[in-house]
């Protein structure tokens, strides 16, 4: 498989990652940058999940008559569960820090948040 033919899921995942990174690189409001980070994380999670997908197979829950050979790779799904929770935790932390920052600086503009430099 060459680059132009990668799956739509990969494409979507990469797009999310890049959009998120774009927000981090361009947006002046630090909250938007943080949202960019979250979008990136989502993209990464989508990527992980996509890697574990196997065409024509079902969720790796072996009930309702699903046999082991009919299931997709369970590992990436387990990983994504963990990654999502970690993402939530990171987001909670970033938002709290932004709240504290705003309280002290009265701004969320990155160009004004630079008392620590040099």
């Amino acid at each position: 498989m060459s680059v132009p033919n990668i799956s739509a899921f990969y494409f979507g995942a990469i797009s999310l990652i890049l959009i998120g990174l774009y927000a981090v690189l361009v947006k002046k409001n630090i909250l938007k940058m943080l949202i960019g980070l979250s979008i990136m994380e989502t993209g990464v999670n989508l990527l992980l999940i996509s890697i574990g997908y196997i065409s024509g197979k079902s969720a790796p829950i072996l009930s309702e008559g699903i046999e082991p050979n009919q299931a997709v790779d369970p590992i990436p799904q387990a990983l994504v569960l963990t990654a999502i929770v970690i993402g939530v935790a990171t987001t909670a932390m970033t938002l709290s820090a932004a709240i504290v920052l705003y309280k002290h600086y009265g701004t969320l503009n990155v160009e004004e948040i630079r008392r620590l430099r040099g």
Partner: protein
Amino acid sequence: MNGQYASLLIALPLLGAFFVPLIKGLGKKAIKTYVLIITAIQTGIAAWVFQQVYSTGKPIIVMAGGWRPPIGINLYIGHFAALFVLIVAIASFLMAVFNFKAIDVEPIDKYAMLFLLLMLGATGMIATGDIFNLFVFMEITSITAYALTAYNKTGEAAEASLKYMILGGIGSSFFLIGVALIYGATGTLNMAQIAQLAGNIDPTVAQVGLALIVFGLAVEAELFPLNAWAPDAYQAAPHPITAMFSAFVVKAGLYAMARILYLMSSVGTWHNVLKLLVVMATLTVVVAEFSALRQRNVKRMIAYSSISQVGLIALAFALGTQAGVDAGVFQMINHAIIKALLFLGVGYVAVQLGGADIENFHGLGRKMPVTAFGITVGAMAAVGIPLFNIFWSKLRIILATVEAGYTWAAFLVLAASVVEAVYYFRLIHAIWFEGEGERISESIPLVAIVVALVILVVAIGIYPNYLWSVSQKAGSDIFNVAQYIKNVPLMGVGA
């Protein structure tokens, strides 16, 4: 006790942290004492593990859940991990003592939990044998670090923390992409098995995956130009935490980078990655030393110094030779001691005199002689003066660097070291030969720690043999991948 009890290294700090809410009401002093006790026990366990590993010469493989790798996650406590987990525990213990003097901001119970979990995170990063588990522990470490950086709740602290979060977030995301690629290519997450299969991975996948993983870890390992968060975080964090950052948090990232790098050494583009890392590491040293040169804030200055030293370690690891890795490990240990000493000293001065600006250090020799003495010894050691520990590791690194053919890197690093010598010189001069002051009484436990660390610095400086042999063992633990694979009892799934 069998080796599986080494899992207490993980279980204890967790239990310790989870227990804090239940004793929240007992007051500041009780909670600080509690942290001290937990870290002391952790040090005991780590010492036991160290003794086990070094006396038997075999790594302890902790198999979580009883599943053999690669089915389950295993901890690989080899020579390196045993050593470094011990260092993590000791450093945490010392800083737990420092907490009594340095931490006054509320809420102390949260601080205590985060403190223990920072220790946990670094321990896990060093011990784990699973690449995704590494990610988890890395996140534990870095999220704790984010929280602790902002703990003082000043605007600057929040600013530093946010910077750290944004850069760390990008780093960890790309790290995870790398893990995804490597998983997609090998179908496993176990480090030993990945090492086994690394040679067969599609070269493009391997190149992208390895580059991304190294990139992600390099953010944590403070490599230039990914380290811009570091000085701010070091400056803003509570003093004991800064010491922990420098003493082991960054080292955990660095180690992880080295470990994965060497595990993947059969990948085709490996040497290119190494070259890139050599460039980055050298630039890290140079830029950091120059940045430290004119700092007015001593804590920030030492932060830059720490970054440069870490760059030196990274350089050693990036050489791709046994000599380099050994030297890097040696430097890691020495640097941990020195920076614990320096940040402890500087932090204590900041606590006592109300800030870490250079003006506060004028006449320190008269005000707080023991602390001043400790800082001086730390500074001199950092510069690489003989009879102090860093001399040996720096010498080793330079020799290894030139030996590996990177004479230019050695040139640049040493040129930067001249700069380092100058700013430490200024500090020492300010402490002993400028300003006046009345004697302030110094806390006995802190003085004891300072003196103990000074003795350690000099003892290693005079008699580096033991630590060097330990470093060599730890170094070959990283470098000798074949042995690593052999040591992990892979059950042969998919093979």
